[in-house]
Structure formats: structure tokens, C-alpha cells
């Protein structure tokens, strides 16, 4: 399936609303966690399915073994987000998330799911506000635990050919924590986003 790429105006608009969405996400996360949250400038592009593993590998500093959590979102735009945590996971966030202590595998899993849910919620609601879409969310689920990065998203297991990919890194000031968020919206959502972008462009 061939995909019509976004034109320059659409690309600029998408980058702009994504930047705004991330800014909002950062400030609501800071309000929730009471620490300063650092978000990278989001990287937005349309990728072919074969480029996904490399794109994911590139963004992660410590690609040896990662844990990944997925969460789907849906409405006119639909897709999945994958949050990738390094070997350290997010145990140093336990106190910020209201945990007294994290016990056992279940405790650690729940913390990962909780952190994923707030990151994904913050980012998508920011994005949703810009394009006037209220997203529904599926519960987050563990996708892979301590798995080599190249096995987390394998192109032969993905059922689409092109997707809109948004990547952003999160880190917390004065804490070692870092994680990576990937948002993938396959095929039909690329066109839905195009309409939303055109709509925004018209209103200027």
C-alpha cells in the first residue's frame, strides 16, 4: 500500500501540535509527580513497517535488555503506544507513584503499568486537545520483560505497512529515571490525522 506523505505545511503543523501536546504533558506530569519532567522534542514521521525495529533501537541508549509496556488508544485516530524502560525499570519512581515499597514481580509490573498509563494519558490527552479528539484507552499490558530490544517490535509480527510514528523520551530531574515512548498510528489514522491537520491549517 502506498502512502501519500504529508506536505510541508502539514508536517509543520503536526510537529507544532505535538510540541504543544508534550509541553502540556510535561506540566501535568510535573504537577502530579511534584518533580520536573524533561521531555525531548518529539520526533514525528511516517515510517514503513520495516523501519520500525531500527527506529526503536536507535532511540534507546541501553539496548541490551528492556521492558516494554503497550497501551492502545482509540477514537477517530487509533493506535498503540509502547513505553520502553531500561534495565533499571522505574523502581526509583515508586515513591512518586504512591507506593510504600514495591514487592515481587507483581508489584514491579504494576508500577510499570501505572507509570505507562500516566505517561500515555498525559501525552494523548495533550494531543487530543489539539485535534479535538477524546481518546478511549485500553488497560496497559506488559509486552516484554527483560528482552533484547530487537525482539520487542518485530516487523514481521506487525500487521500494517506504514504508520505515523511519534517518539519522545522522558527523564526526571535529579533522578536517574529515563524511558522512551513510541506512538504508532497505522494506515487509516495517517489520513485521519491529515484531515485534522488540514482543519487546523484552515483555521489560521
Amino acid at each position, binding site marked *: 500500500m502506498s502512502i501519500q506523505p504529508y506536505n510541508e505545511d502539514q508536517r509543520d503543523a503536526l510537529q507544532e501540535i505535538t510540541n504543544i501536546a508534550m509541553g502540556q504533558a510535561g506540566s501535568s506530569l510535573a504537577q502530579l509527580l511534584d518533580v520536573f519532567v524533561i521531555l525531548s522534542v518529539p520526533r514525528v514521521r511516517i515510517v514503513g513497517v520495516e523501519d520500525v525495529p531500527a527506529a526503536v533501537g536507535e532511540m534507546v541508549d541501553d539496548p541490551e535488555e528492556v521492558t516494554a509496556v503497550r497501551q492502545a488508544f482509540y477514537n477517530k485516530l487509533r493506535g498503540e503506544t509502547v513505553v520502553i524502560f531500561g534495565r533499571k525499570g522505574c523502581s526509583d519512581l515508586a515513591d512518586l507513584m504512591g507506593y510504600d515499597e514495591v514487592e515481587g514481580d*507483581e508489584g514491579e509490573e*504494576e508500577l510499570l*503499568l501505572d507509570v505507562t*498509563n*500516566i505517561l500515555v*494519558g498525559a501525552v*494523548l490527552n495533550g494531543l487530543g486537545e489539539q485535534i479535538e479528539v477524546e481518546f478511549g484507552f485500553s*488497560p496497559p499490558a506488559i509486552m516484554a520483560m527483560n528482552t533484547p530490544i530487537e525482539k520487542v517490535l518485530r516487523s514481521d509480527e506487525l500487521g500494517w505497512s506504514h504508520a505515523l510514528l511519534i517518539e519522545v523520551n522522558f527523564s526526571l530531574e535529579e533522578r536517574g529515571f529515563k524511558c522512551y515512548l513510541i506512538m504508532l498510528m497505522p494506515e487509516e489514522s495517517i489520513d485521519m490525522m491529515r484531515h485534522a491537520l488540514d482543519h487546523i491549517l484552515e483555521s489560521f
Partner: protein
Amino acid sequence: MSDGLDPLSFLRFIVDRVNVGIIVVDKEMEVLLWNHFMAVNSGREAHEVLGNNLFDSFSGLPEKWLRKKINSVFILKNFAFTGWEQRSYLFQFRHNRPVTGSTDFMMQNCTFLPIMGANGEVQAVCITVFDVTDISIYQNQLKDAMAKLEDMSIRDGLTEIYNRRYIETQLAAEFDRCRRYDGTMSAILFDLDHFKNVNDTYGHLAGDEVLRQVSKTLVDVLRTSDVAGRYGGEEFTVILPNTSLEGGMKSAERIRSAIEKLHIVFEGQHIPVTVSIGVTEFRKETKSHEAMLQEADTALYICKENGRNQSRAYDPKDGSE
């Protein structure tokens, strides 16, 4: 629409009677809605709970964490979730399988959804509590069954030690580890002496009993880190991680002497058993894990030539082709 039937009153009824727990709390954690499911399961009627602080009404709740969770919905305007696989339940309720249930309490999946006001801010948070006790029981049964299947797929049916396929994958993995990290390992290959005679003289059932006893002895004399399996017929393999050739020979001698001392009696007849053992170790020039087995086999062959019931370390001068 029929006269006198108001969909809003249905809605009220449905929210109250649907078989899902529904609670609404405001920013101060004051309970604004408490449906029938919650009342029946908690034993607290709505009028006892409404208008009160959720945490005052239920002392057993994980307050600090749950406050944070509910707060996140207010701030981020997003959904939040809990799943029974990580946290069995939010509200400690008895479940409806008092007889057939194997868990103590109702397993719950909960969803937290923001109730938006006209001003675009979250006014209240609705918590839905789904009883997933049945699902959790089936899921656990499935998990147990899968674990059993997995175990069966890597074990030899007769002797219950590992099968050839498993031994080969473990050997390959250990070999790769040694090559990558410059490690040490040994491998043992052994074979029952004159096993054909045992079958011919005492019958196949006797032969099976010998294989079982030898396997049991093998497991008993090895360390927990060693991996032992039936390679085929009357042939056995042992992988010895972090073990030099010298250590491998010690293990081999322990195996040989323990099997020699076995007193196997089948239908009143004593069956003497001995084994011949070839041992080899990982060397930098070793080409593959298959080559290691080939070397052990070469040493084993020399044991057979030299009169059986003995073990031998492979010497590169022996050649392995």
C-alpha cells in the same frame, strides 16, 4: 417511546443494578455514588457511605497509592486501571464461588474514568469494579497446564530426566556463553555397557527399569547446576557449566562408581550395570557444541575398547573424526 417510561430512570436503575461495582468520588474523596453491587458485596448500604470520605468508610484500602491514582485522573484527565494479575483486588470482597473457588477473595479489574464538567475540568472520578474471579481461576488453571506441558515437552517420558532436544539447546546455549565470555564448561557422554544383553536376558521391562534407576542415580550424584538428559537409547549426556576437564572427570567417576554400586533387582533377579564415560571440555578452538559431543563420543569409544566400566578425558591427540 411508551408513555410514562423515562430512559433516564432506566439509566438510574441500570447503573444501580448492573453486575459491576460503580463508585463516584469527588476531589476530596467524598463518595457521591455507591451502587447496589458495592452495597451487597461490602455490606455497607449507600446511605452509610454517601457523603463520607471513601477512606474513612473503608480502612482496608491502600490509601496512599489509591489517592495518587485517583488524583492522577483529576490532573491528567485520563483513564487509569488496575488489573487482578498485579493487584488481586481493590475492595476486599468475598467472591461468589464459595465452593468451587480456589482464591480467598473476589478478583477485580478496576477502571477509573474522569467525569468531565462543562468547564473542561474533571469534576469527579468514577471507579468501576469488575468481578474477574472466574477469569482468574481459568487463567491460573491454564498457566498450570501450560507449565506442565512445557515441562513434559523437555523431559524424556520413560526416565523423566531431560530429553535430547532440551539437552541440545542447553548445550548450544552454554557453548555460546563460554565462547562469548571466555568461560569454562565440560560435557559428559556415557553409555550403559552391554545394555542389549540386559534386554535380551531379562526382557525390555527390566531394561526400562535399569534406565529409570540409572537416571535417578545420575540426578542424585550431580550438582543442581548440572544438566542431565537421556540422549537416546541407553546414552546419556551431562552438561557441566563452569567446570574444567578435571572437575568433569571427577563428576564422571562419581557417576560411574554410583551406577556400578547400584543394586537393581527386577522380578527377583539382580541386574548388574556398569557404564563407560567420555568427558571433554570447552577449548577456544572447539568449533561447535556438536564437536564437543563428538569428542566425548571419541573418548567413550576408547573406554569401550579398553574394557568398559571406566571414564576417560578426551585428548585432542585421540582425534575426533
